[in-house]
């Protein structure tokens, strides 16, 4: 199957995936929570994927998820409506992303990665040290929420959050898909291959990267907001480097080839984690590291790459 053939098949795969998720969430209510978190992480990973297209990897994007989450925690007592909190969290993360992006898009490769890491560690330590405002490492409990004026509780709240995550994921999936085939998106991959030629054509590479960066911050902000509203508790750990590493890990696991990759990666990751965390409680990071090495060295296309190869084979035979 050709590249464009894969692209055409993608919406059907996405639909099938969404139906499968709803079915699983229906059949196994305890998995609904896990899947909501997986979808939220998938949204953040989609942002990582955009940056990967430009050949840049951010080791600090959990910072934007943490911003989204803390916006929810701070704003929930006064305006606890999901439909207000979600855009507010995204907007805040996006504005911070714009300010940081203006500075950070001057850098590439390791500088880009490590500056993001450094900034996220700054946010982490600020969240931890300013106890009076953020309650430090104890974190903040998110006040009761409502949606469109209706208070949320029990199973209804879980379904609302699952539905919200699915809807937001679908919207961003569509946005990312359109964005990547737009001139702006094509220019993004040109940053990876030959940035100077892009500039010879009169395109500002910084501008192109900035758009992707702000978009990725928005996505991470949305993810953080959903995580905060689902777990109802936010801590500085959301901004810690391990959380950022997790996002990059999921991006590689899912495969950077298609926009479905992040969601495949996130669901795979969360499910493996639920079942494996019990078995490897103490060496969880080590297992992740080994898996990451295995994927990079032996299956560079990730889960998406494996599925694409299977589809191709099915089409041939």
């Amino acid at each position, binding site marked *: 199957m050709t590249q464009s053939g894969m692209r055409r098949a993608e919406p059907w795969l996405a639909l099938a995936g969404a139906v499968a998720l709803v079915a699983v969430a229906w059949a196994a209510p305890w998995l609904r929570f896990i899947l909501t978190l997986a979808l939220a992480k998938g949204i953040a990973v989609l942002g990582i994927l955009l940056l*990967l297209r430009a*050949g*840049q*990897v951010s*080791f600090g994007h959990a910072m934007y998820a943490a911003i989204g989450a803390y916006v929810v925690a701070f704003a929930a007592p006064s305006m606890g409506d999901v439909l207000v909190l979600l855009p507010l969290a995204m907007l805040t993360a996006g504005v911070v992303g714009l300010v940081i992006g203006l*500075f950070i898009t*001057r*850098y590439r*490769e*390791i*500088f880009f*990665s*490590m*500056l993001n*890491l*450094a*900034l996220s*560690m*700054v946010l982490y*330590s*600020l969240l931890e*040290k*300013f106890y009076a405002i953020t309650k430090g490492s104890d974190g903040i409990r998110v006040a009761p929420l409502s949606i469109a004026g209706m208070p949320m509780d029990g199973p209804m709240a879980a379904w609302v959050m699952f539905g919200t995550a699915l809807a937001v994921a679908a919207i961003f999936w569509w946005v990312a898909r359109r964005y990547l085939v737009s001139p702006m998106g094509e220019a993004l991959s040109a940053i990876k291959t*030959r940035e*100077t030629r892009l500039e010879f054509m009169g395109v500002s590479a910084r501008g192109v990267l900035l758009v992707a960066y702000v978009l990725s911050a928005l996505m991470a902000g949305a993810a953080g907001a959903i995580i905060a509203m689902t777990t109802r508790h936010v801590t500085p750990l959301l901004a810690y*480097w391990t959380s950022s*590493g997790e996002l*990059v890990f999921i991006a*590689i696991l899912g495969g950077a080839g298609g926009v479905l990759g992040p969601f495949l990666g996130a669901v795979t990751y969360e499910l493996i984690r639920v079942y494996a965390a019990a078995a490897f409680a*103490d*060496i*969880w*990071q*080590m297992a*992740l*590291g*080994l898996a*990451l*090495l295995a994927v*990079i*060295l032996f299956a560079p296309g990730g889960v998406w790459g494996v599925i694409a190869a299977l589809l191709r084979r099915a089409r041939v035979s």
Partner: protein
Amino acid sequence: MITWFNENGLLLGLALLDGLAYAALVFMVSVGLNLVFGVLRVLNVAHGSFYAIGAYAAATLGGLAGLPAWASLPMLLLAAVLVGLLLGPVIERVLLRRIYSEEPVIQLLVTFALFMILEDAQKLVWGVQPVSNDAAVRLLGTVDVPFAGDVIPFTAYQLFLLPGVALATLVGLAWFLRRTLTGRVIVAVTVDREAATAIGIDAKKVFLLTFTAGAVLAALGGALASPTTSLVPGIGAQTIVLSFAVIATAGLGQIEGAALTALLIGLGRSVAVYFAPELEVVVPYLIMVAVLLVRPQGLFGAAEARRV
């Protein structure tokens, strides 16, 4: 100003002494990271793990039963050399050698994965409870440092040994790289890998040597730090981020520049510890961001031509 100094002078003196000792440690780690990056062109995210493992190993070796008190100092060195020689060559040969031709993103991810693995390996061996062993500090005792008409009692270990070792490393490394044949070969590979290989330099050997040297330096930084602090999980992450801040601020490939920047960042951080504790972790990054905004190539780095 004068009244401020009368009230806070001693605190400032303590901050400066602390900052000097801290800068010495930061220099040891960042100069290794810098060297490895210069030669291999791979930013080793796991460099901080060598620091952490060196520190833990030193605490364990120094705490062996029946060890005479004077032995605690050589044990620090022994721990660092052991860790560097055991981990460095294995990691270079088994893992890094496979990825020299890969994209920078992949190289970063591989060392990041290695970092995750080593982080847990540490927890498996030494647990998550704080580990400490200050035998070496107690051995050397304290000195009264005259400051602004007063005296500050300060440990001789932090006052003389740490800056001493750092200075010796700086001078020794500069001499090694500029005056010995092996050192010049390393510099040649750093400047132009292709040309160096073309005149018959075995780049693989140079990579192995440099990576091992970097690992020993990081482990030595950790080993020297171990008597002055208690070791907890997460020091590896802190260290890699901090040493990256140092080499990015200094400019990649600078040895003397890294020393001055380590001093700047070390002093900045310890002044923050005493006068604005909540900013402690933030100060190094503020310095880095401020420098990079004005000079993207770093304080001492030469501007590099863009690759076409």
